[in-house]
C-alpha cells in the first residue's frame, strides 16, 4: 500500500491548477459561495491527484446532487453527474465495467448518507475499490440549508428552526461498521492533512472513505453563530483532535470535537478482484 509518507514539497497552487483543474471562464467563478470549504476540498483533491501522478483520462468523478456536484466540472477527469444519491452504486458499475479506472465519488452528506445511505453501506460491504469523499457541511446546501442526518444535535437549520432533535450519523463509524477498508476524517482547514488522506484513500485498494468537515457559513454557520468562513475555519482548527489525543480525554471532553485521522486501514476481499478470480475459475472449468 503506497502512502504519502516521504517528504513531499508542496508546489504553488498554479502547478496543481495547470495539471488537474479546469478553471471557469475568465469572468466567472467557482459556483460555490465565497469562502465555501468546497473550494478548499477541491484543492486537496487536485493536489492528491498530482502527488499520485494520476492520468486524468483514467479518472472518473461521480457526483449526485448538491452544491458540490459541479466540482467535477473544475477537475480534469471524466464525469458522471447523475441523480441524487447515485454515488456508490453508479461508481460500482463504472469500476466493475472497467477496473483500470480510478473512480472517485464526490458526495455531500445528504447524497452519501441520507438518500444514498443504502448504496454507501453496500459499497462498503462489497469493498469495491473506489474512493468516496463526503463533504459534511451539516446541511442540504443546494436546496437552501435544510437539516439532514449529520446536523449536530440542537443546531438550527431551515427545517430544524427550534434546534435539531434527531441523533446524527458518525459517518466514519458508519463506513467502518459497513466494512470500508480505509476510513479517515479531516477538515478543510487542515489543507495538507486532507491532501494526505485523499491520496491515501485513492491509493488504497478497497472502499475508501474520507469524511471532510466542510464549512457552510452561509447556511449552517449563519444560523448557528458563525456567519463568516474564517470563524468556521478557526472552529475546525480549535476543535479538531487526533485519535491519540482523544484517547487521553474523557467522553465529555471529546463531545463536540472533531476527531481527525486515519481510523481504518485494512485488507478484505474486494469485489472487483474477486470477480476477476471468479471469471478465471469459471472459464477454466468450461
Amino acid at each position, binding site marked *: 500500500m503506497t502512502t504519502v509518507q516521504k517528504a513531499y514539497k*508542496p508546489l*504553488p*497552487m*498554479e502547478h496543481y*491548477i495547470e495539471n488537474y*483543474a479546469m*478553471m471557469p471562464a*475568465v*469572468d466567472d*467563478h*467557482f459556483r*460555490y459561495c*465565497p*469562502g*465555501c*470549504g*468546497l*473550494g*478548499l476540498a477541491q*484543492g486537496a483533491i487536485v493536489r492528491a491527484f498530482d502527488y499520485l501522478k494520476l492520468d486524468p483520462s483514467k479518472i472518473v468523478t461521480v457526483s449526485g446532487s448538491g452544491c458540490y456536484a459541479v466540482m467535477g466540472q473544475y477537475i480534469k477527469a471524466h464525469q458522471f453527474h447523475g441523480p441524487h444519491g447515485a454515488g456508490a452504486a453508479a461508481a460500482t458499475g463504472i469500476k466493475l465495467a472497467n477496473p483500470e479506472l480510478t473512480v472517485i465519488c464526490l458526495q455531500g452528506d445528504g447524497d452519501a448518507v441520507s438518500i444514498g445511505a443504502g448504496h454507501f453501506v453496500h459499497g462498503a460491504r462489497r469493498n469495491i475499490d473506489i474512493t468516496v469523499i463526503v463533504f459534511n457541511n451539516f446541511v442540504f446546501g443546494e436546496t437552501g440549508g435544510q437539516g439532514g442526518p449529520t446536523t449536530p444535535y440542537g443546531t438550527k437549520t431551515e427545517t430544524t428552526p427550534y434546534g435539531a432533535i434527531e441523533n446524527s450519523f458518525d459517518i466514519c463509524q458508519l463506513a467502518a461498521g459497513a466494512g470500508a477498508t480505509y476510513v479517515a476524517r479531516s477538515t478543510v*482547514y487542515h*489543507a*495538507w492533512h486532507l491532501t494526505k488522506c485523499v491520496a491515501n484513500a485513492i491509493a488504497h485498494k478497497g472502499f475508501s472513505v474520507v469524511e471532510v468537515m466542510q464549512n457552510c457559513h452561509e447556511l449552517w454557520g449563519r444560523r448557528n453563530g458563525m456567519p*463568516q*468562513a*474564517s470563524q468556521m*475555519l*478557526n472552529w475546525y482548527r480549535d476543535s479538531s483532535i487526533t485519535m491519540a489525543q482523544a484517547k487521553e480525554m474523557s467522553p465529555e471532553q471529546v463531545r463536540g470535537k472533531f476527531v481527525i485521522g486515519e481510523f481504518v486501514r485494512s485488507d478484505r476481499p474486494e469485489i472487483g478482484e474477486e470477480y476477476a478470480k471468479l471469471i478465471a475459475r469459471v472459464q477454466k472449468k468450461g
Partner: protein
Amino acid sequence: MPTKAPSAPRKARDIQVVVNEQRCRSCGICIDLCPEKVFIAEKPLLKAKVVDLPACTGCRLCEWLCTDWAINVVVK
C-alpha cells in the same frame, strides 16, 4: 538607532504574494487567518490586498486556504 524595521525571519529569498483580484470574492479568510496580518480588506469591494509583505514568513496559509484559488505565493 536602527534605520530599518526588522522583517520576518526567512532565508534570504524574495517572497511574493499575488492576489488574483478577479478571482477574489472577498470571503475574508486570508485577511482573518494570516498570522502576520499581511492582508487588509480593501474598500469598497473588500477584496484582499497585500499591505505588509515584509511581515510575510512564506507559510502559505493564505494560498492553501483561499477558497477561490486566488492567491499565489512565489518564493524565489
